[in-house]
């Protein structure tokens, strides 16, 4: 048997040969025979024998199984790492939420205190105004200023508490907040204010504190500008959040922007100064947009009016 034995093997009178446990490979079985007198036949017979290895003994199988084992080990490792990362992220998230809750609680307590004091200021100023006989117009104006200052302080504090509240963390809540602000701002004016695109779908869109704060302040500034300078009849805030991109636009149908220095073609310079320069306001809005990695487009529209458009990719790291 070539491939198994080196030489001939005598078999005596046996007329068969048996091989067991042949390893996979190629063999040649050669047979020579003698006749009864011991004369060797001239020809030998041979057959080629190929033992095909079972599939589990092939090289490919070895490679593949090694690969599979490695892959399984790697996946398991990855999975465990990921689970651990997820767990620590979850912990971190809870910790963050708790910390925000505490921060909000502190702010709220402080706001409680402040609110009571502001209430007193407002109440007693009102009582003074009522009880001073022959109150002069000037004195009345001073008193009004005290009340107004304390009111705006109270409103600012409420906004601040709102921004700190981790439970009010959706785009929906933010738009509602802006809408309530707009309703109050335009209520006593001839301006008609509307919000378009507000739906409960926006509840799914989570915003963190920074987003809430900058976006609300940006659009509040925009609404204030519209009221103060645009001389418009309609103000519309449009919200659109699709495939991870947020677009918020404030339109008015007023006089539009005047080149370089604020709203209106005949903008009186004293008004300009009194509002600390509308330019500063616009710069502020741009700065806020930048912080959120967003683009802010403020421009006059061709058919009159102003457009303030903020667009940005939404943060995906919401709660």
């Amino acid at each position, binding site marked *: 048997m070539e491939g198994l034995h080196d030489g001939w093997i005598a078999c005596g009178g046996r007329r068969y040969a048996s091989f067991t446990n042949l390893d996979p490979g190629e063999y040649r079985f050669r047979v020579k025979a003698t006749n009864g007198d011991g004369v060797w036949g001239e020809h030998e017979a041979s057959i080629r024998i190929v033992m095909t290895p079972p599939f589990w003994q092939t090289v490919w199988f070895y490679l593949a199984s090694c690969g599979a084992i490695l892959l399984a080990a790697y996946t398991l490792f990855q999975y465990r790492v990921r689970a651990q990362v997820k767990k620590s992220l979850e912990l971190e998230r809870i910790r963050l939420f708790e910390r925000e809750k505490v921060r909000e609680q502190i702010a709220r307590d402080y706001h409680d205190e402040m609110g009571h004091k502001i209430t007193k200021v407002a109440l007693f100023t009102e009582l003074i105004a009522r009880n001073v006989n022959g109150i002069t117009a000037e004195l009345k104006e001073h008193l009004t200023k005290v009340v107004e200052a304390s009111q705006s302080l109270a409103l600012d504090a409420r906004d601040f508490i709102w921004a700190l509240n981790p439970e009010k963390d959706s785009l929906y809540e933010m738009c*509602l907040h802006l809408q309530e602000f707009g309703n109050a701002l335009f*209520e006593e004016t001839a301006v008609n204010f509307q919000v378009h695109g507000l739906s409960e779908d926006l509840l799914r869109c989570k915003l963190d504190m920074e987003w809430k704060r900058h976006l609300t302040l940006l659009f509040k500034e925009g609404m204030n500008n519209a009221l103060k300078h645009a001389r418009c009849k309609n103000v519309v805030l449009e919200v659109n959040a699709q495939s991870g991109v947020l677009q918020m636009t404030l339109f008015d149908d007023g006089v539009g922007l005047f080149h370089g220095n604020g709203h209106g073609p005949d903008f009186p310079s004293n008004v300009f100064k009194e509002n600390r320069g509308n330019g500063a306001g616009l710069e502020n809005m741009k700065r806020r947009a930048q912080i959120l990695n967003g683009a802010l487009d403020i421009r006059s529209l061709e058919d009159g009016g102003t457009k303030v458009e903020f667009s940005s990719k939404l943060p995906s790291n919401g709660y």
Partner: protein
Amino acid sequence: MTPIYVSLIEDDADIRQGLKLLLKGTPGFSCVAAYSDCESALREIPNDPPDVLLMDIQLPGMSGIDGVRRIKKLLPDLDVIMLTIHDDDKRVFESLCAGACGYLVKTTPPAKLLDAIQEVYNGGAPMSASIARLVIQSFRRSSDSNLTAREQEILALLCKGKSYKMIAEALHLSKGTVHSHLKKIYKKLEVNSMTEAVAKAHQERLV
């Protein structure tokens, strides 16, 4: 014209005094009594019932929310307005369920505060969008919400953050009509949350 008789419960002495003086000094209003806590108010109010009661939410001892519940048992027709520092949704909603028919943020300028009392006396007080959402959810939970179509419309608009002015315009109603619808909604909310509470109590006793 007879003035609106107002009583108030407020623990801060200065604010209590200030509100009392404000009410006394305004034509159309009269201050009946000013209490510093719910306990004394509960004792004395039935002897001298006002038209409107201003009630602080945060009070030492019995909270304003429990206070409303108890006082409405004694005087079911009394209009109770909650006074609060921040428009804390949860507590405002709880007091509405307990029977209050409106709430005011304390830091509201005095003139507007008086307007709002007048408004509540004539009808329900405005509701913020987030409160309106809680109210709708609460009615949704009860199997037989007895809100009329109009009331549901108004709630839905409030929920979208529409102001009274806008709701009146959208539904072609007068502001006064919107108010009276709202007052009914507040009333139904109270009844609804009472039945809900009773049902819940029953369930818990059974389990």
